[in-house]
């Protein structure tokens, strides 16, 4: 496990480096170092501190958050295809964020915190709705989960579009942001989501062992001494909090929460005490790489990172679906 953590951290460092170095102007490692310790040239200082670093941190938090909450949803629903995007939580959170923004709150101070909070409330409502619709007894079959997710998600997206079309031009520009995640707003956004993400992620990480026990089903989990209802609620709330805050400033980014935990599961096994931290680190790194690709693919134009993750993630999802059909799920 130590070795795997170390390798993941190396991967993350590489992704961080690429994300800060690559863009309209390439920064060499030396320039980057000088800038970070405050001895760089004026232009590179501006590029790093005003543009690349905030964007990098926001992408990192988003990728890490979506991926660790994806892994948690998978454990909670005992279904490896649960993903914040596929089960509709991300769209639900997007709706809440747009509702909050449509009140044109001040984009600093408390007003900024209301966006992730509103996203959190609608995300919780969405996940509760999807779960109730998809549940059969104590299990959630894949087909039900995905279908309920698609339906609820479509509903939330329609409401979101409706709100946007009725609002000002300024709001309408948010459409591009929400539907694919081109990250904006820099440091204030980071400050707004950081506390929520940190709290949510810590709660999820310390519930790894409980998630292990939950894999045996509610009856056995209870017979092994777990307070099943309480644990489920805690994990559901924490995962939804992390998803909602990630979505509220980065937009709806699909498949990171599905692909990364799945790869980690293949790499290091099903123990959630390993799976969650590895998903956290590699999820951040993976989204950073996707964001770098989004920036250079059609340079100087930047693509929303969500397009890159969906282009890569959707085929992967289909592959898992086929594999699961043939071999049964893990």
């Amino acid at each position, binding site marked *: 496990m130590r070795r795997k953590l170390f390798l993941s951290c190396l991967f993350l460092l590489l992704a961080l480096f690429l994300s800060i170095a690559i863009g309209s102007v390439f920064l060499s490692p030396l320039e980057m170092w000088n800038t970070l310790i405050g001895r760089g040239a004026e232009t590179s200082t501006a590029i790093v501190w005003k543009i690349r670093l905030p964007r990098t941190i926001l992408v990192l938090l988003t990728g890490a958050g979506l991926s660790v909450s994806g892994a948690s949803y998978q454990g909670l629903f005992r279904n490896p295809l649960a993903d914040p995007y596929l089960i509709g939580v991300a769209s639900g959170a997007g709706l809440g964020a747009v509702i909050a923004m449509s009140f044109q709150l001040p984009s600093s101070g408390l007003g900024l915190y209301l966006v992730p909070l509103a996203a959190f409330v609608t995300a919780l409502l969405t996940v509760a709705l999807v779960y109730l619709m998809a549940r059969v007894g104590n299990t959630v079959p894949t087909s039900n989960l995905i279908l309920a997710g698609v339906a609820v998600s479509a509903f939330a997206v329609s409401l979101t579009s409706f709100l946007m079309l009725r609002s000002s031009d300024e709001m309408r520009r948010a459409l591009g942001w929400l539907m694919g995640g081109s990250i904006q707003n820099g440091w204030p956004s980071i400050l707004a989501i950081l506390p929520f993400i940190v709290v949510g992620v810590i709660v999820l990480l310390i519930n790894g062992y409980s998630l292990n026990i939950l894999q045996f089903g509610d009856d056995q989990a209870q017979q092994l*001494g777990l307070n*099943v209802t309480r644990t489920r609620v805690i994990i559901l709330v924490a995962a939804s909090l992390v998803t909602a805050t990630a979505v509220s400033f980065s937009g709806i980014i699909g498949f990171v929460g599905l692909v990364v935990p799945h790869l980690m599961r293949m790499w290091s096994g*099903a123990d959630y005490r390993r799976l969650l931290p590895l998903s956290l680190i590699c999820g951040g790194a993976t989204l950073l790489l996707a964001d770098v690709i989004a920036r250079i693919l059609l340079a100087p134009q930047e693509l929303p990172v969500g397009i890159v993750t969906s282009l890569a993630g959707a085929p992967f999802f289909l592959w898992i679906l086929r594999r699961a059909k043939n071999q049964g799920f893990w």
Partner: protein
Amino acid sequence: MLEINNLSVFYDARQVLENVSLTVNSGEIVALIGPNGAGKSTLIRAVSGTLPIKRGQVKANGQEITTLAPIYRARTLAVVPQAVHLPPAFTVWDTVLLGRAPYLNFLGQTSARDEALARQALEQVHALELAEKRIDEISGGEQQRVLLARALAQDTPILLMDEPTAHLDLRHQLELLQLVKKQAREKQLTVLLVLHDLNLAALFADRIAIMQNGVVCVAGAPAEALTAEILNSIYHVPVHIVRHPETDAPLIIPGL
């Protein structure tokens, strides 16, 4: 010691257990038998605390189970569930070690003693060589033994089992029940188990409780409970009773 007093359980509006009373003493093995749908598995689940109890009470070593938090309940009662879904990606070792869950902190950090108990439990069911295998790589019978090992690792005074011999071959059926009997005698383990095989029940149980339509209708020593009249009235088939040549226990042969 396990005391079940006037227990009634409902699935929605349908009553599935009606005024069930049964006591299992420390060191005693009581086998639950009866036709399909009689409520045997329901009784095991209700006693283990996973079904809501409508009326009556279940006392485990004097403590009423509904007043116990799950973690303390799991230190008193261990359950070997009926052939169930097990998460395939876990190893046998991980699964057995989960029997120690009620004694661990929320991070699940195990001590040397926890690992020793898990190892000992795996040895007792002759499955130590399976430890590194994944659950989906072993047979149904092996899974059944692994679940018994997990329950033994839980180190509780009371053991509940729902058809633990269902997928086992003859040798493993006997070995499992002999092991359970040994534990009952040596550690004063209280055992309540569902068995479909009447002859195994007659050979290994100290007492037999027969269930029908959610009621325990007969309870007594094998020779008293397993009579041709009673079995005929429960299962609606003619049976003959003969005696085991070594132990004189009743053996049931279906009539034609």
